[in-house]
């Protein structure tokens, strides 16, 4: 059964009803394109946010947008495009990767903290969020944060909601900071570098005051998927005309020792954002957040134990890994190897049975797990909001 209320009160009513019933958990749904992320949720009732799809406020001169959670990213992009603006965190679209259909929504991008390549320069969803309206697990309609650019009035619940996968509240409306689109956007590439050299090149580029807005490395097999003939180390440079030209020249000079720096005509960033290189096969896909300079070491260590394909975003701080799914998506090997470096691994794509069997999110130390359970119990005492999505 799916309910699609078109008011916040309607949502709150359903949550209250579920909270007072015996074992009536709710599966929260936006566009349904990311339902295969996290652990599978067992719920008889689905609460869809699709009915809440309006824009509450858009002030281009204040770089501020407030919209309801069910608004599609497509509609949002169209709106922002009309003012030559964009979301700061470049949210991903995982339809191809996850084999889902529907339209990704604003709320879904916030709940799953779906940040793309620009996260490196402009931050994640949490860094863009100014305020939220949400319904807690008791059906109270609550606000947190606001719509202004700076706000330290009370604890930062809006950021907490980002990446909480709807387990702490039903977010109904989100205010975010948006940003202007750049006049000029260019991609620079160095070909044929080893993973280690490539990350050194990206670190060198990011140490220059050039506001590099994306930095990725695609090893050869991955790069070929995007039409490159060899491994590709990529940088995105933006700005006004003089500025962009100057930045490109500065980077070319700084990176000369790594090899010739070429301008790339096609835009690889959407494919990188959406992990298109791993779409359309049946391997398990992991997303690993770690220290950039350790990333090639992790990948090399893993290659000694299992067959993996990897590429790097965020200057190396984000590793996308594909491996055989098997019974456990190599969870043990990957987390054990990662432990030597520090960071965390999230299983983004695998069958329901594998995602139910292995911890999708990095297991927490006992004391941190107690804090997580404590927060869950305080926001959703009846445990009805997306139960089991993040932890059993």
């Amino acid at each position, binding site marked *: 059964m799916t309910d699609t209320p078109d008011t916040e009160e309607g949502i709150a009513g359903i949550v209250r009803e579920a909270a007072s019933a015996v074992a009536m958990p709710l599966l929260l749904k936006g566009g349904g394109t990311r339902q295969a992320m996290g652990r599978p949720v067992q719920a008889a009732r689905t609460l869809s946010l699709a009915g809440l799809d309006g824009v509450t406020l858009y002030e281009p001169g204040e770089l501020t947008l407030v919209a309801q959670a069910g608004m599609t990213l497509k509609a949002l992009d169209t709106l922002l495009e009309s003012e030559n603006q964009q979301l700061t965190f470049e949210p991903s679209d995982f339809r191809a990767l996850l084999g889902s259909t529907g339209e990704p929504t604003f709320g879904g991008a916030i709940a799953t903290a779906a940040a793309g390549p620009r996260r490196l320069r402009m931050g994640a969803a949490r860094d863009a969020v100014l305020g939220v309206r949400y319904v807690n697990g008791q059906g109270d309609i609550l606000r947190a944060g606001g719509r202004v650019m*700076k706000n330290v009035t009370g*604890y930062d*619940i809006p950021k907490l909601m980002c990446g909480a996968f709807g387990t702490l509240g039903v977010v109904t409306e989100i205010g975010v900071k948006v940003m202007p689109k750049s006049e000029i956007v260019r991609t620079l590439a160095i070909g044929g570098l080893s993973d280690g050299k490539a990350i050194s090149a990206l670190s060198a580029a990011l140490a220059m005051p050039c506001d590099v807005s994306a930095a990725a490395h695609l090893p050869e097999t991955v790069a070929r998927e995007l039409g490159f003939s060899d491994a590709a180390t990529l940088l995105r440079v933006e700005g006004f005309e003089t500025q962009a030209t100057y930045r490109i020249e500065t980077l070319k000079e700084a990176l000369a020792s790594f090899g010739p720096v070429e301008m790339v005509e096609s835009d690889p960033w959407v494919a990188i954002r959406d992990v298109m290189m791993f779409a359309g096969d049946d391997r398990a896909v992991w997303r690993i*957040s770690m220290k950039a300079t350790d990333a090639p070491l992790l990948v090399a260590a893993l290659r000694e134990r299992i067959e993996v394909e990897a590429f790097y975003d965020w200057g190396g701080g984000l590793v996308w890994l594909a491996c055989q799914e098997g019974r456990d998506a190599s969870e043990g090997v990957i987390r054990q190897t990662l432990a030597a470096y520090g960071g965390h691994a999230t299983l983004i794509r695998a069958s329901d049975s594998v995602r139910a069997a292995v911890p999708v999110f*990095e297991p927490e130390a006992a004391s941190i797990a107690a804090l997580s359970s404590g927060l869950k119990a*305080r926001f959703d005492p009846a445990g009805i909001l997306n139960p089991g999505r993040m932890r059993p």
Partner: protein
Amino acid sequence: MIEMPVPDQRIIAKRDDLAARLRRIVPAEQVIHTAEELKAYECDGLNAYRQPPMLVVLPDTTDQVSQIVKLCAAEGVPIVPRGSGTSLAGGSLPTADAVVLGLSRMKDVMDVDYDNRTIRVQTGITNLAVTGAVQPDGFFYAPDPSSQLACAIGGNIAMNSGGAHCLKYGVTTNNLLGVTMVMADGEVLEFGGSFLDEGGYDFLSLICGAEGQLGICTEATLKILPSAEGARPMLFGFETNEVAGEAVAAIIRAGLSPVALEFMDKPAIVVSENFAKAGYPLDVEALLIVEVEGSDEEIDEQLTRIEAVVAPFGPSTVKRSGNDIESAKIWAGRKAAFGAIGQLADYICLDGCVPLSQLPDVLKKTAELADKYDLKVANVFHAGDGNLHPLIMYEANDPDSSRKAEELGADLLRLCVEKDGCLTGEHGVGIEKRELMLTQFNERELRQQMAIKDVFDPAWMLNPAKVFPLSLSTPHLEDRRAA
């Protein structure tokens, strides 16, 4: 006057025993107990409120902090964490039955990693010292509160501090990657790390800006960024605040991203100019200082565009800095503003935030309210993000003037909330805005926030009596103790 809870005499009775036990954790001279020395800790930047604590302890290590917190937890003694004591909101105001845990000795830079652009520090280090540690190698730490020479990173984390340059680089929470935190029971936990995202819930988001109420951060990993090659400002004068406000919105809308966009109103211009002789025009109502950074050519390109965007608003003064000397001159008045006003009168510095579109109206109403209370208010603030800093001038020695200043401050903050803004953009709630929280949020919303404190600090021993109105937190705590 803002009320503080009645100190618990049973705790105060244990003072000497507690001091003796603290001396077993840290060297004797790091436990401060004489009335004379405790006076140095009786207030922070909100110096209208003063209360010496029971004791002050100054640890050197995370382990010592953990032992101190364990001892205080076992004895039921509240702890007030303190960085450098520069809070303008009373964030580190002690109570008579509290131990102040000062971070002032914990100033080490523990690691600098240029390849990953991070720095690991103890949280007692000053904000400016973080930049100082990496500047010779061409890097800086972005958040730059105006107290940066003195304020500690621990306090920056507690208040989620901003600064003039956060328009481009974000505030503390956007530049904080990980912390070591001593929990209310003394356990030491790590949150985040030297990578970009946390796994699981985003605890760092809660910790940053929680005013030291969820734990005591003893170490932090911060992002550092490559320094720009240069920066130069431009100065514009306008005949009305309205037009200046419109020009700000136009600059932002045009996709120009200045690193700083500062606004001064007439009273602030006059006081600063008399003091600093910066060459500000005295026949304008509002001044904007717009700074951009980059190489010389980049700067020129951006300033030319900004000038063109502002031109239709008919600025009566346009001054463009061509070199460092001219830049310093343009900034001189702005930088001297608080000091200049301080020479004329005592002042309260407010910190409300409003949407840009509301700026002109808020400034107009601010002047009306100031007239009503017969007080002078100067406005110097970060216009790009709508973060107002009205400076209310008053006579601290005159109780009537003090009372009026406090009432006017409350009225001005209510005005910010009415205009869809908030009580505090970067100073924090502390005690100053605690009772006003109910104008921003309803009871249920605040209860949901208090529930977060319950999870981290079940007995409410860390920086109690801050952030939440006593009318809510006192019965809440009594209920918890009864249960």
